[in-house]
């Protein structure tokens, strides 16, 4: 695995204007009232070390793909919402631009969705996982049995193209994108009607792939299929379908998975430091990561020196904890592979809520499967230490408001935003305001953000700045080597207003960065 070390020799950017602290050194970053644009000086950048494997973007997630990313071409774009992010089909001549859907056998289980129905077809995003023998492994909607012929056709397509020494990447037809991800011994297929690019869809398929690896390890997966090509993997994945279902939901809704970043519980840095050092003190020989979560917010993370967690592995842990209430009682102890760390072996995670009825969940990751009682002991030591401090009350207080309102920023037209500090891999975002409180509205706004993300990270024509006007809102995205920023404004605002808001927002984030980010991560 490539160790993506923080690249200090980043090209100095001179984007529009006053914000760029020319010649500013990283050290005076914190004293600077003006946010830096450059990696390491942006608001939220860690002080001396990083918590995560440094992830630039998609390339890092896939690691093995050859990187043909055109470095930020510096282009700017103003457009209407909904323009396709990538034009033209890739991979297949036009006569094959159809997704075949075989009629499936009648008599599939009544409780399950009818895969021949219009409702089934209308789902925004389907995901299928199959083995190279064409055997169904997972389907987001409808049973795998009912879809086995569809999956057979998918595999036939993949093989047909491969016979000519080509690789099928995607099919674009009729408002649909069909994206293929070949990760031997698995094949993943996404069928989407969203505004996302092929590349972002492929990124999501990677998540699903790694979710499966996290349960089995790649070594075991390879072993199984080497011995029995048409093995029915669902036997081994039994009971984990809801993890994949939930992960797909997160991909639709959670900005963290879109941004490849994690968000923190807003907390004063002195309180966070006490919590971190209590956690740091509760160490054990084989402990590699100690992670304290509040819902989907990170409270703190302590890691073994020189061991980095990848945000994707952290998201998989979030998903594991978030999609199961079975950890609510007692203490969980489960093998888990963190695929971005190592696809070959299992870690063992001790998962427990700090106290009954709280949202604070502690994950202790060890290399030793016999470590349960040691880690259980760590947890108790941590909790006892913490209970004696006033910081614990402050933490309980903070849990009542795990997010903040956008009105705190003081920009009336601004409805919502996402801000990611690239060097720390952390992002911040206010709660969704009134017009976006329903699930549908949240998914809609997330889809717009995904669209901007797709445009910004376009493989051949990346953008640095984009401003879009829609019917219900105006959106702006701006990316520098230090951060990624997505803003959502009321539709009445103007572009000039939006641009002037950036500066104000960045200053606000700089002012609040102690609370919103983890600036000094700890190691054991």
């Amino acid at each position, binding site marked *: 695995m490539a160790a993506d070390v923080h690249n200090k020799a980043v090209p100095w950017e001179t984007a529009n204007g006053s914000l760029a602290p020319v010649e500013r050194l990283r050290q005076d970053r914190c004293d600077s009232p003006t946010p830096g644009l450059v990696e390491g000086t942006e608001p939220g950048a860690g002080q001396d070390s990083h918590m995560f494997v440094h992830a630039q973007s998609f390339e890092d997630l896939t690691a093995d793909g050859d990187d043909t990313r055109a470095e930020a071409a510096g282009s700017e774009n103003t457009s209407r919402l909904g323009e396709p992010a990538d034009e033209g089909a890739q991979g297949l001549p036009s006569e094959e631009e159809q997704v075949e859907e075989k009629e499936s056998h009648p008599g599939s289980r009544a409780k399950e969705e009818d895969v021949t129905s219009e409702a089934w077809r209308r789902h925004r995003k389907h995901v299928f996982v199959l083995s190279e023998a064409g055997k169904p492994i997972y389907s987001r909607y409808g049973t795998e049995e009912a879809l086995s012929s569809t999956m057979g056709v998918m595999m036939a397509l993949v093989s047909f193209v491969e016979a000519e020494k080509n690789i099928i990447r995607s099919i674009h037809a009729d408002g649909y994108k069909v994206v293929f991800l070949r990760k031997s011994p698995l094949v993943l297929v996404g069928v989407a009607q969203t505004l996302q690019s092929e590349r972002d869809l492929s990124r999501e398929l990677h998540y699903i792939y790694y979710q499966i690896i996290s*349960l*089995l390890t790649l070594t075991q997966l390879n072993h199984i299929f080497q011995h029995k090509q048409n093995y029915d993997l669902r*036997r*081994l*994945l*039994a*009971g*984990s379908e*809801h993890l994949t279902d939930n992960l797909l939901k997160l991909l639709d809704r959670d900005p963290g998975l879109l941004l490849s970043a994690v968000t923190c519980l807003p907390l004063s840095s002195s309180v966070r430091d006490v919590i971190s050092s209590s956690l740091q003190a509760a160490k054990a020989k084989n402990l590699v990561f100690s992670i304290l979560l509040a819902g989907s917010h990170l409270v703190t993370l302590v890691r073994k020196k020189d061991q980095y967690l990848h945000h994707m592995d952290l998201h998989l842990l979030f998903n*594991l904890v978030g999609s*199961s*209430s*079975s*950890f609510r*009682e*007692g*203490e*969980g*102890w*489960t*093998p*888990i592979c963190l695929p971005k760390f190592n696809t070959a072996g299992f870690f063992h*995670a001790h998962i427990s809520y700090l106290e009954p009825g709280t949202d604070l969940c502690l994950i202790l990751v060890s290399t030793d*499967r*016999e470590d*349960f*009682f040691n880690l*259980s*002991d760590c*947890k*108790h*030591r941590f909790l006892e230490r913490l209970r004696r401090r006033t910081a614990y009350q402050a933490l309980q207080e903070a849990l009542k408001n795990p997010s903040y309102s956008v009105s705190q920023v003081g920009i009336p037209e601004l409805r919502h935003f996402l801000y990611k500090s690239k060097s720390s891999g952390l992002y911040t975002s206010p709660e969704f305001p009134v017009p976006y409180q329903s699930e549908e509205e949240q998914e809609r706004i997330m889809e717009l953000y995904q669209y901007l993300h797709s445009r910004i990270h376009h493989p051949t024509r990346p953008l640095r700045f984009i401003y879009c006007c829609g019917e219900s809102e105006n959106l702006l995205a701006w990316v520098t080597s230090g951060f990624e920023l997505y803003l959502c404004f009321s539709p009445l605002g103007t572009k000039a207003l939006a641009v002037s808001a950036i500066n104000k927002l960045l200053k606000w984030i700089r002012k609040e960065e102690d609370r919103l980010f983890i600036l000094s991560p700890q190691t054991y």
Partner: protein
Amino acid sequence: MSGPRVDAKVVMLGKESVGKTSLVERYVHQRFLVGPYQNTIGAAFVAKSVQVRDKVVTLGIWDTAGSERYEAMSRIYYRGAKAAIVCYDLTDSSSFLRAKFWVKELQNCEEHCKIYLCGTKTDLIEADRSARQVDYHDVQDFADEIKAQYFETSSKTGRSVEDLFRKVAADYISTTFEVMSEERGVNLEQKKDPFFYSCCHN
């Protein structure tokens, strides 16, 4: 003080969805959770203290997932267990076959572990007798053969759940007590009873 001191390790075994988690939930929290099935991930541990007559024991209960995925690793959950509650669903005959598998596994790897067979969801067969798929006498015969205790429980109504764990605790106390008195060798009452004495030596 660190985590709870545990006297006896108890492991729940059996096919997925036979009701192991519900059994523990009923016993520890006196409740039955309805809602969509939530399979256990890996295993969950919970400790509970029980008083049997004048003695208190803390049972450390391991609720396992029962999935094939971690079968190779399941030994870590039952190693050193004093008792195994092997569950099957009275309305699902395949779950009884799976229970037999676990019994064999325990006999091979963990010979000192006492086995308790537990048929779950009796409320379902009380509501509809034809729902029963595992014959009472078949299990009774099997239990005799492997020298196991046999219970039929319902986590929904609470039937026999307390009895089951109480029996586990009581058996643990009595075997520990036997071993201890044997070691000390000064228990006068026991010495008077030649049958009991010899029995302890086998």
